[in-house]
């Protein structure tokens, strides 16, 4: 198990380096960025001129970003900066470190995502179990139809539909603001509904696979009831395929917040990211991308570990090598 863990962490590190390299290259290649100055003619003074900055300031920026060093040194400092949480300053908010923006905005987004996940799990697991046990009954068919609709729509379309119904027609819930708990209902629901759709569908299907497998007959033959079958056998086994889909979904959810924050005007990292993208605030773009990449990698690692916990076959095969 330890060896497996070590290998996964090593792999994660390699993947992280690759991602950072790609973002770094993209950043260097970006047109109109002073960061790409070692591709440009004329050196520091020329670039400083074109940015209307004094050559002295420019020179300090250049040495700050190690722009006079070869690319791999720059890359090294870039990664080191991220890992030690000492990244550059934002273009858009001068004097503000990107880490500061991230420090305040990321927890907000993360909380939003977490609330959505918890809501989704709370709803999806019972729904999945009920529909699977009542396979092809009217409840199953109708719930699964609704779930399919939910799956098909992206969170921001759900958000719009929710706004139309609950804010516009019924005036039940507010749409703007982030101070009272009611403000969070619609954003969290918009994120959760597509997830509830897909998670309950996956859980139902994987639970059905389990319920149709022969060992269930084995449990029944021993005198067990449906309670035993689901509770102590099938549900646990069906979580394994669920984890496979939930992992990447969580990662996607972290990004889904970008659009929800945009629609509901919430001050999450996604919101800053969007404006950074529109305003070409490269340091902020790159740093938040790296952060999201890190979050996704950690999620994937957790998924792999969960596999090991849930499935003894995998656990034992890891032990062997």
């Amino acid at each position, binding site marked *: 198990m330890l060896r497996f863990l070590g290998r996964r962490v090593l792999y994660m590190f390699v993947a992280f380096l690759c991602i950072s390299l790609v973002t770094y290259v993209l950043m260097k290649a970006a047109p109109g960025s002073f960061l790409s100055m070692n591709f440009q003619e004329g050196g520091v003074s020329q670039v400083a001129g074109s940015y209307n900055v004094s050559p002295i300031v420019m020179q300090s920026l250049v040495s700050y970003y190690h722009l006079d060093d070869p690319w791999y040194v720059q890359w090294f400092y870039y990664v080191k900066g991220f890992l030690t949480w000492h990244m550059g300053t934002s273009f858009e908010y001068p004097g503000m470190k990107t880490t500061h923006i991230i420090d305040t905005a990321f927890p907000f987004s993360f909380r939003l995502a977490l609330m959505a996940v918890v809501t989704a799990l709370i709803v999806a697991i019972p729904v999945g179990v009920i529909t699977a046990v009542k396979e092809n009954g009217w409840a199953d068919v109708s719930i699964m139809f609704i779930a399919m609709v939910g799956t098909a729509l992206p969170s921001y379309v759900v958000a719009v539909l929710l706004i139309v119904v609950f804010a516009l027609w019924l005036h039940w819930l507010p749409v703007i603001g982030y101070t009272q708990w009611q403000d969070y209902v619609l954003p969290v629901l918009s994120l959760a509904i597509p997830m509830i759709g897909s998670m309950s569908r996956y859980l139902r299907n994987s639970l059905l696979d389990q319920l149709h*497998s022969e*060992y269930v007959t084995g449990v029944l*033959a*021993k*005198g067990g009831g449906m309670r035993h079958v689901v509770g102590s056998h099938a549900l*646990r086994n069906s979580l394994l395929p669920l984890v496979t889909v939930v992992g990447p979904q969580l990662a996607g959810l972290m990004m889904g917040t970008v659009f929800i924050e945009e629609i509901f005007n919430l001050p999450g990292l996604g919101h800053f990211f969007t404006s950074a993208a529109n305003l070409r605030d490269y340091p902020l773009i790159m740093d938040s991308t790296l952060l999201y990449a890190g979050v996704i990698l950690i999620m994937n690692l957790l998924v792999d570990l969960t596999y090991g916990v*849930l499935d*003894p*076959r995998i656990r*034992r095969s890891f032990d062997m090598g």
Partner: protein
Amino acid sequence: MEVNDLVIRFRRDGGVSHAVNSVSFRVYEGESLGIVGESGSGKSVSVKAVMKLLPKHAKFEGGDITFAGRSILPLSEGAIRHLRGREVALIFQDPHAYLNPTKTIGAQMVEPLLFHRMATKSEALVQAIDLLRQVGIPSPELRVKQYPFEFSGGMLQRVMIAMALIAKPKLLIADEPTTALDVTVQAQILQVLRRLKQERRMSLILVTHDLVVAANTCDRIVVMYGGRVVEQLPSQALLSQSQHPYTRGLIACTPSVRGERTLPTPIGGAPLNLRRPLPVGCLFAERCPHCMERCRSESPVLKTVALGHEVACFLAEPQTSGVSA
């Protein structure tokens, strides 16, 4: 245990499958009964029906099953659960499929006792280890902590037997328990089954496609074809006194490692397609070498030709010489 005129159909996607078309058999206390038939003969469905373990789209369309004088079909799910595992236990063809791959052998073995609240977990585990030793599994204390995938097929089938016996059932139903195993292992498993049946004085129903296995293991044999019983007789009478053309055909088909090296005489034609409407008359008529006009219009019923010997064929004749049943 008694099964009478059982009819089971599967309805799925608009089609009807005539899985069991009137089956009757009885097992007495301490007796072993072999149910023999080829695939699609309804033998597995019949015995799973005994414990109502069929999927939802299976419908009982007639007949009756009684166990120890009680009718089973009207029983509620809760009531039938009291019988399962405690009174009647089952073992299946593929032990790897019939065990949960993610739970240890020990945890699954004690379940019959836990479900019926017959022991605490730790007591149950002691019993499980003891039983594993009885079915011939070396170092059972270690084995209970292992998972099904760490066992070979033969070993796992022993585990299944031990698990089935843990709640001391009166009847053990073994559904093709040795089909997936190598011959040497098959011989071992059958021996274990025979020994435990003797020791525990329970009844045994052995479902198999192999006439020889059934004849060697059981006291009595029921031969099924197309979801009907075509012949029922004591094992000793099988070779010499069986009368149904299908039973005779099966005997003739079975290859042997001894005696004359001649090709077996095949039964012509294809097995009955149970998804199509059933033919009128004898279900075996199409493949029968002795088929008469009457067989195509009229369905033969089981008639007694000797003590404990019934045949569903118009050509069957009563035995005059005494046969020991």
